[in-house]
């Protein structure tokens, strides 16, 4: 956004939000509701795709393929404070210039709140992933007869709020979207869920809410204690010798800008960074989720309807990982350098523990839920590496896992639909009766267990390679510290993952068909369409990852630079 005002990012939220209202108010029948919902989510998807396309072609400049429709470029920061009684203002060109598209409006200036949306390499693919999965969820659950219009409307609301989380660059706005996300998911589980839906929905709500509450404390602490000092040190960069006092601000860009530069970092001292880091880590970790704060996830998944599961695992969990890369690492870099091992330990424990627990699960959905926990451990491990390759891998894992887990949860829905059960011991020899289902299941599990050539491998490999290479610290720090050999522990998780998935395939697909299941039918056409898109992306990213890796790769440069020294 440079000279001309552009509203694309606001539109990205507004389209599904309007769609939510229209679907809720203006539609009557199932056919009507799903068509309207699909149209709105497709519109959001198209817009997000165009944005991604423009960003990729812009290559860091201001003119992408769609210029001047879209105009990239990080606008200057405005620092506003008072010197004595007079208001002073200065603009500052941000160093990183990462936020390619930015919208920023005054909101509550007295409290330092702005309505500020922006995307960079880290958020853009996730902003693309969100409407993609919403659209595919609508297509997949094309025949939801129970309270149709509310169902499809809530899916759109999910799309709006999650996109809001990924784009918000003001802490207050971020917190609002973060909480708003809970509402549609709570209702999706609570209304369209299985037999224990109440328990699951409440558990989900309480867990994420507690995590959020602690995070919120930290946001306020940073807001009140740190942001005035950070603004003052940024002011010093302008060279203006006037002494200026600043109000606290929620503007995340200002914090990111100040913390990105070792010279202006001082106002956020380490002793403050550490508690803030822990609080944020807890909030994001519960959302991710990490062991031992994970038990809400299997319950939520088992009870949630398929579309709910897809969005829960596909984009909701990604909010936790996104928060770590957007907030915890860049805003508290010194604390991250001290506490990286905490992330590594939690990540490794999640990977090992969850992978083991997968094996004895009877319910397919529960198994996939636990495997999600394990795979989110990679994100923590990648973040803990403080290394460019590792960070890019961890962030990329968010995207890849979103695709894979969507396929897997859809498959759980398909098999329930086709056979009436999700219990693995009852499903035998499906390969003979459900060939298409079996094919997709094999692709999905292989991608999930990290088979090279499919997308999961790329990010998992980068995480391991980055972690093992060690943080890119300034000279003096040995690049290959001996305890990095402990990487063998999380690597074991890869073997365990292979084992439980193979055993699952073995029990479900091979052998003779369980006649007790009666008549079964293979995937219907609308489900196939959803699988085709997702599997296509899985293979594409696996064989040619550069395109979707590029955004994360560019974002990781700024992140890894935080520790590299001046």
């Amino acid at each position, binding site marked *: 956004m440079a000279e001309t005002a552009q509203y694309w990012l606001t539109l990205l939220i507004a389209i599904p939000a309007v769609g939510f209202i229209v679907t809720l108010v203006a539609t009557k029948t199932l056919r009507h509701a799903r068509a309207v919902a699909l149209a709105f989510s497709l519109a959001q998807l198209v817009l997000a795709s165009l944005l991604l396309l423009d960003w990729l072609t812009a290559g860091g400049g201001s003119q992408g393929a769609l210029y001047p429709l879209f105009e990239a470029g990080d606008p200057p920061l405005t620092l506003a404070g008072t010197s004595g009684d007079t208001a002073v203002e200065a603009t500052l060109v941000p160093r990183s210039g990462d936020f390619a598209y930015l919208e920023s409006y005054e909101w509550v200036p007295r409290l330092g709140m702005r309505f500020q949306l922006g995307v960079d390499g880290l958020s853009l693919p996730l902003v693309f992933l969100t409407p993609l999965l919403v659209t595919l969820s609508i297509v997949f659950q094309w025949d939801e007869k129970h309270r149709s219009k509310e169902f499809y409307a809530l899916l759109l609301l999910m799309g709006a709020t999650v996109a809001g989380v990924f784009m918000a660059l003001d802490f207050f706005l971020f917190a609002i979207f973060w909480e708003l996300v809970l509402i549609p998911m709570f209702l999706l589980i609570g209304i369209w869920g299985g037999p224990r839906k109440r328990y699951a929905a409440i558990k989900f709500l309480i867990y994420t809410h507690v995590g959020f509450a602690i995070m919120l404390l930290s946001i306020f602490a940073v807001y009140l204690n740190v942001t005035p000092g950070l603004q003052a040190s940024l002011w010093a960069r302008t060279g203006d010798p006037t002494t200026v006092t600043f109000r606290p601000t929620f503007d995340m860009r200002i914090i990111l800008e100040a913390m990105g530069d070792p010279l202006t970092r001082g106002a956020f001292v380490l002793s403050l960074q550490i508690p803030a880091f822990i609080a944020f880590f807890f909030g994001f970790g519960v959302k991710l989720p990490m062991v031992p704060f994970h038990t809400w996830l299997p319950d939520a998944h088992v009870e949630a309807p398929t579309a709910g599961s897809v969005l829960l695992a596909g984009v909701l969990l990604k909010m936790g990982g996104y928060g770590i890369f957007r907030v915890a690492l860049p805003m508290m870099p010194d604390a991250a350098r001290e506490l990286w091992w905490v992330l590594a330990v939690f990540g490794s424990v999640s990977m090992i523990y969850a992978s083991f627990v997968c094996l004895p699960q009877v319910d397919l959905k529960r198994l996939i839920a636990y495997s999600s926990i394990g795979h989110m451990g990679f994100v923590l491990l990648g973040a803990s590496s403080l290394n460019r390759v590792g960070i890019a891998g961890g962030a990329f894992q968010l995207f890849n896992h979103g695709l894979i887990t969507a396929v897997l949860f859809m498959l759980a829905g398909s098999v329930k639909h086709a056979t009436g059960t999700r219990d693995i011991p009852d499903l035998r020899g499906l390969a003979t009766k459900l060939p298409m289902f079996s094919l997709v299941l094999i692709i999905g599990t292989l991608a999930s267990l990290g088979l090279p050539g499919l997308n999961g491998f*790329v990010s998992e490999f980068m995480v391991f*390679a980055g972690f093992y290479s060690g943080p890119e610290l300034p000279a003096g720090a040995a690049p*290959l510290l001996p305890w990095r050999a402990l990487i063998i522990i999380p690597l074991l998780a890869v073997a365990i993952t292979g084992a439980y998935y*193979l055993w699952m395939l*073995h029990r479900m697909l091979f*052998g003779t068909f369980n006649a007790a299941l009666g008549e079964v039918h293979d995937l219907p056409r609308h489900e196939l369409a959803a699988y085709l898109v997702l599997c296509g992306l899985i293979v594409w990213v696996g064989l040619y990852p550069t395109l979707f890796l590029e955004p994360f790769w560019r974002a990781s440069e700024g992140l890894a630079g935080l520790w590299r020294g001046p």
Partner: protein
Amino acid sequence: MFELGWIILAAPLLAFLVVGLFGRWFKEYCGWVVVGSFVAAFAVSLLLLVTGLQGGMIGGTFETQHAPLVVWVPGVDVDPGPNVTLQGEIAFRMQFDNLSLVMLTLVSFLAILIATYSVGYMAHEEGKPRFFAEIALFVTGMLGTVSADNFLQLLIFWEIMGLCSYLLIGFWYHKPEAASAAKKAFMVTRIGDLLFLVGVIAIFAIFGTFEFEKIREEMPALGLAGSVTPELLGLLALLLFGGAVGKSAQFPLHFWLPDAMEGPTPVSALIHAATMVKAGVFLVAKSFLFLVPTYPHEYLPDPSVAGHVIEYLVPWNAILVVAAIGGFTAIFAASMALAHYDIKRVLAYSTISQLAYMILGLGAGAWLMAHAGGDPQTAGYTAALFHLMNHAFFKALLFLAAGSVIHAVHTNDMRSMGGLRKHLPWTYRTMLIGSLALAGIPPLSGFWSKDEILAVTFENGASHPGFYLLYVFGILTAFMTAFYSFRLIFMTFHGEYRGAHPEKLHESPWVMVGPLVVLMGFSVLSGILPFFTNGWGNLVFYGHPHAEFPTEPFTHVTTLVLAVISILAAVGGVVLAYLVYDKRRIPAAVFTATESRRGMHTALLNRYYIDPAADRVGRDGYLWIARGLDWLDRKVVDGAVNGLAWLGEATARASDWFDRTYIDGVVNRVSLDTIRGSLTLRRIQTGRVQNYGGMIAIGMALLILAVFIAKVVAPLFGGG
């Protein structure tokens, strides 16, 4: 010319997509589409090989060529500085050097033959499109593996092969044995792959790149700087070797391969004999970078002696491990082949044993080369890769011939065969030649390469006596090999037919016999190929070529004597098998005559009890841990959460009760008192008094607690 290289990978990949997606509409022609794509890949490979030969492959003046494929991770756009891990982009390219050109040609050629054979063998099967699509994908993986330009790329194609192996072993997925075998194969090889993965990650962490050439270029500088040590290189080599042990079914990860014979026979021939299992050997050959670190060209004043070993970096122990695993597996697997009756399993154990020869050859070759120091000797390296090619031909032939037998008699059990010579004349002839080659009878191919491996091992004995032991293992293996291969021939083709329906026996159709005959030709001829290249070491070598026959410059060995010993061992094995299984001069019962012999025989049939042990440790141990953690998750972790919730709810209820009963109660009472006056008294009298009593009790308790804290607890902390 070499930019055409991508066709080699694209052709089978395209066939995979076409057959996989649309194959069901032309079921009968799927096989031919796939064969066609292999022919295309072979044609291009051959073209490149010829170009390379003209460009001086023989003699070592050929410059390694590359063809770009894709960029994986973009490069660093600014100067990364010294602390940054990644130097340059991670891109995939095809590499064409002597070894990869030979391997590409070999693999695509074998793929043509075996796919052609499959057209006949699978003619009556359902699911042909699936079969041929997976075969095509597999061949893509194998061709990609041998033409990889870096370790990451190698790993990716390696895993694609593993996937296809899994799918093809489980081709008859409704058979429980096939399903289990597929799972086992994937899991066991994956254990090795995991070590391989760690190795690749460590390579990246140390060298900042995956590329073979860059690693080699950076080795001397890193060695001088001390960031690379022999221990580290040994670790890297052994991690990679872990992958090879899994893929090439070496001890202790050998036990998946015999089970993998549940797959269709062409799969066994292509994947589990001729190509995929060779990838492990190929990987060990690639890890010579670490086993025998050498100076690259520009470090030496005279380019003609390029390949000087960096002696202070040689990981001697790692080399010994490789050689020892090879030598041990050779005899270990050969012994198991002695007793089995399943024709395919005998061949499977034989494959393990022969692969072990190659590993032994590489280990011994690395030792020889490192030991020779300034005058590098690539004899072992060359011999192992020579054996790789020879074995690919004769073992593919043996498997396909066995398939032809199974096709006719519909059983794998050699006890229900016999006398098939009359009914399957061509199968008999070809299989006989294959067995002679396997047994190592000159002038057939197996002899030449096996003899060289053994000679190199013996030569090393002068510098490390352990190699003498490995040499003895090798000779004993040669004897056993000859014995079991002719036991197989005699039990299957000689004597009288012991199975059912002798009238239905028939020779296989030409599309199956044709490939057998071609392979037979190559089994005879591939052994004398070095005569055309002035020594195989002049074509495939590590470091620099040597024009003579590799065993020429040996100092401690008279090669002729060793050759005679090998031949005697082989002939002895054949003769013993002849006496026992054809002439029956010696009854087979002699092997189970005494208690100890019977015990040995049972142990062999039960594969030394390794399979059940592995099941116990791997499967049951894993299940036990998993169940335990699952219990923990349900009862403890979730239990704590639910307990906390219960506690919260209980607190809430208690406060609610307290609120209503006392606080609200008092307020109400006061108001009620004023309003209702006299009623109050009656209330107190009718039972509310104990509530007040309770309140008094709580107050008292709090008071006592306060006193307790003040008088007892506080002094403990140094207060009042």
